[in-house]
Structure formats: C-alpha cells, structure tokens
C-alpha cells in the first residue's frame, strides 16, 4: 500500500468534516424543534433554545394529550394506514404479476400496462377529480382516503420489474405442477420477493401517514381529519393557542403557541422516526433490485 500524499490526506479530512456538517444539517432542525417543545414558553420566545431544552417541562405535551382532537386524528391516521396499506399492497402484487409476464406469453400485457402508465402522464386536474370522488358518495368516509389512491402505478412498476428479474423456470415449473397463477403468485413469487415487498410496503405506509391533502379535500368535518391534515390545519390557522384551550394561567405561562405547535409537529413525526431505522435497512436494496430490467 502506497502511503497517500499530503494533499490526499488533507482532502479526506476536509471531506469528512464537510459530510459530517451536512449530516448534522439534516437532523439539527428536527432536534431544535424537539428541544423547543420541551422548553418553557419564555425561553423559546427569547431564542435561548438550541438543541437542548431550556427549563425542561412536558407541559406542552400534556396540553396536546388532553386535547381530544389530536387523538381522534391519530386514530384516523392509524386506521387509514392499516386498511390502506393492506389494500394498496394486495392491488399492487395482483396487478404487477400479470403485467410482468412476457408479451408473447400474455399478449394484452402491453395494452394493460399502458392503461396504467397513462394515468401518471395525464390527469384531469383537481376539480374534476374532486367531483368524481364526490359522485361516488365516499366523501367524509375512511374509504375516501383509501380508494382514490389505492392503485399506485409507481409501486406497481417497481414490483413488476422485480418480478421480471425472477428466473422464468420458477413460474414454468409451478404451472406444470398444476398450480394456478394465484397460487404461483402467493406461494412462489411473494416469498422470494420479500425485500422488494418490504420496501414497497414501508413506502406505502409512510405515504399514508404523510398524506394530508386528500384529508383536507375529501373530509368535510374536521373531526374526521387524519393526523397530517389536522396538523396542517392548525399550522395554517395561527390561533393554535385558542385551539389548544390554554385557559389555565399556570399552563399558559410555560406553554405557548410555539411550544405547543412544536410538540404536535414532533408527535406527528414520531411514528416515522420510529420506523425509519427499519425502513432505511430495506429501501436501498429494494429500490436497486426493483430497478433492474432485462
């Protein structure tokens, strides 16, 4: 091994410093808001809070927890996450499997695939979409948050490209042994597609958790907002303080608009932050595998 030159070593050190700074830049804003949520109103307003709480207290969280709306919205989000992810994934594999077939084997495959791909190239716009959902009478029900987005063409493409990369012999031997297509999909294809399946599932879950605009458009009563929509509605409305109902003077001294909002932001982000370590283990390999094409 040749000893690296001085300039090379200088570069490596600078590079490490730069990349470390860059990584910190990605998490420090989150840590700052977390610190604000645990600080007193006065310290936050004076700009004393850095990345560690000043006058540590959990009053802001107590106020948010007492608020029934937050938990209602949380429950709504959990419900849509579980039901929505299940439906999305079933549709995703059911659709990706036939589309992954060779067009010699399944002649209409290309035509079907274009029907789906066209929906990502062109759309009717916001109002026609809203009116169409309205006509299905799904507004204000949980299904309004699930069905309109249940077919995710990007995920289907990812999955179908993964299926195409699997050895042809798998399917042939399974069909020769008398298994139908459904059996082949669920008993042969899915068990060996776990990394890609995990990636798509996790992305779908994050998508459901984060999605807020459909809640704003399709839920008429704010009581039925999912969490992301609820957070969005209080961010737009500057009177969080009134919404949080800070009537008790003792509480109002420690909790302000700002610390209360910081607490709600952090609690909304928390589920993502919890699954993130598992998520990032899968998504890189899953993404790369899904993008391999013949």
């Amino acid at each position, binding site marked *: 091994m040749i000893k690296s030159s001085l300039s*090379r070593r200088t*570069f490596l050190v600078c*590079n*490490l410093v730069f*990349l470390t700074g860059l*990584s910190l830049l*990605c*998490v420090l804003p*989150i840590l*700052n*808001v977390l610190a604000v949520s645990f600080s007193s109103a006065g310290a936050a*307003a*004076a*700009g004393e*809070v850095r990345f560690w709480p000043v006058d540590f207290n959990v009053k802001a969280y107590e106020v948010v927890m007492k608020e029934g709306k937050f938990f209602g919205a949380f429950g709504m989000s959990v419900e849509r996450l579980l039901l929505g992810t299940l439906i999305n994934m079933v549709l995703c594999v*059911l*659709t990706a499997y*036939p589309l992954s*077939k060779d067009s010699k084997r*399944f*002649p*209409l495959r290309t035509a*079907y695939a274009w029907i789906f791909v066209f*929906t990502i*190239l*062109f*759309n*009717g*716009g*916001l*109002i*026609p*979409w*809203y*009116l169409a959902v309205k006509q*299905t009478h799904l507004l204000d029900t949980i299904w309004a948050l699930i*069905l*309109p987005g*249940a*077919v995710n063409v990007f995920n*289907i*493409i990812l999955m*179908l490209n993964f299926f195409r990369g699997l050895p042809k012999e798998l399917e042939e031997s399974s069909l020769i042994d008398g298994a*139908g*297509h*459904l059996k082949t*999909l669920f008993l042969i294809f899915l068990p060996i597609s776990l990394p890609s399946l995990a990636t798509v599932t996790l992305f779908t879950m*994050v998508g459901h*958790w*984060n*999605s807020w605009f459909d809640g704003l458009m399709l839920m008429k009563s704010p009581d039925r907002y999912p969490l992301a929509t609820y*957070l969005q509605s209080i961010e*737009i409305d500057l009177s969080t303080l009134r919404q949080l109902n800070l009537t008790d003077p003792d509480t109002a001294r420690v909790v302000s608009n700002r610390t209360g*909002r*910081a607490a709600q*932001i952090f609690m909304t982000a928390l589920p993502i932050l919890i699954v993130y*370590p598992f998520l*990032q283990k899968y998504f*890189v390999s899953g*993404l790369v595998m899904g993008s391999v094409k013949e």
Partner: protein
Amino acid sequence: MRVLKSFKRDYTLHLMLVPALLLVLVFSYYPMFGFVIAFEKFVAYKGFFHSKWVGFDNFRYIFKMPDFLPAFRNTAIIAILKIVGNLIVPIVIALLLNEVRQTFIKRGVQILVYLPHFLSWVILAGILKDILSPSGGIVNELITALGFKPIFFLGDNHWFRFTLIASDVWKEFGFNTIVYTAALTSINPSLYEAAVVDGASRWKQTLYITLPGIVPIIILLATISLGNVLNAGFDQVFNLYSPVTYSTGDILDTLVYRVGIVSAQYSVSTAIGLFKSIISFVLICASYGLAYRLANYRIF
C-alpha cells in the same frame, strides 16, 4: 385468434387486473373526461356533460386574470431551479461519499441525509416556520449573532423563492444520491487498478473513470426531469406561502386550489389545471421519448 386463445388459458391473469382497472377507471379516467368542464359554464347539479358549453371563454378569462401569468412564471422558475439543484447537489455529494473509505461513517452519513425525504411537507413546513422565524428562530439567532440583520425567509419576496428551492434540495438531496451511489458501485474496479498502474492520481481517476461511469444515469435523470418543468411542488408551496409572498411564490397548482376550492369557480380552475396538464403531458412524453432514444430507457 392468438388473443382469444390466451384469454381462455390465462383468464386468471385478466381477472387479477380487474380490481385495479376498475379503480383507475373511476378515479383516474372518469376525472380525465371531467376536463370538459373547462369549456363549460359548469353547474354542479347538471354534471360534467350537461352544463352550458362556452367554448374557449374560460381560457380567454384566465389569460386576463392578474394572477395567472405571474403564477405561470413562478412555477417555471421555481421548478427549473429545483431540477438543477436536485440534479447537481446529489452528484457532488455522491462523489464525495464515494471517497469515504470507513464503512461506518459512510453508513452514518447516509442514514442522516436520507431522513428528511421521509417527512412530509406539513411536518417540515412546521419545522421551517419555527427555525426560520425572525423572532426567536434559531437560524435568525445565528444570523444576528454573526452581526447581520434578521432575514424573514418566508415573508420577504427577495428570499422566498430561494427558501423554497434551498429547502427542497435540503429535503431531497440525500435520497437522490441513492441512484448515483448504486451507479458508482457498479463501476468495474479493474478500471481503477489499471489507472493506478498507469500512475493516475485520485483526481484523474475521478475525472476519467468515475464521472464517465455515471454520465449515462445523469443524462437519463436529467432527461426524465424535463417532465417536471411545471411541477413546482404544491405540498411545499401551499404549506409555506402566504398572501405576502404570492407575487414570487404563487404557482399554478396553488392558484388552481384557490380559484377552485376557495372561490368555487370550478370551470375557471379546471381551465388553469388543463392548461398545465396539457403542457406537462407534452413535456413528459418528450422526456420519456428522449430517454428512450438516448439511454434505451423504458418505463416498464
């Protein structure tokens, strides 16, 4: 004949597609035909196809709207600058990351920089509003500590576009490095060995082996991003802008929302949306066509 035969043999394959086809029909194709209301004086109870036909009146109206052309310009400026930033920054970071030899440092950096991608704009807007606040926000505390005047990033038209673009690049750059990192690992190591034997320095190796190795993927991604020239990012703008910054930050998507949902002018809003959809459609088709020619890229 061949099609008919396959129908009999593989009816399960067709059946498997039915649920997704039905959903796409109701929630994607039916709304697509709803664009006809852009040519109508739409009345809700009469429905998509029975309202009064007015031809191009709504389009003439939107071109006279004082908000339309600024929104169009803002959309293009913001989207193009985002495309450029989101293309260049990840390449640079991926190259720098590629020079790190200690695996645990590399993994650590990757874990942290991918994170913002997974948080929604609602959460990030809340965070940005807090840290960028001119009164007590940490960024302005830092700026004033360095002896400058506080900057109202989200309320000053000189800074608003910059804030949008910088925060978007901040959110996505880490995640966007994944593609390049994958491309970098697929470069044949024997190329580097040969270069070392020939006496090439690390810099020369980067210039003549690493960069050419990822040029195809750069060209591909640049071409595909052409289709996003009118996608300035509704989620981000909607959660960060305010009437003060409409002049530099209002984009077509937010205008569609305000005209359609806030003012309930369904036909006018749809006309703006259709205008955007058609330009975007042409751009996307052109970009995929180009990607197919240049890189033999296929969507599926």
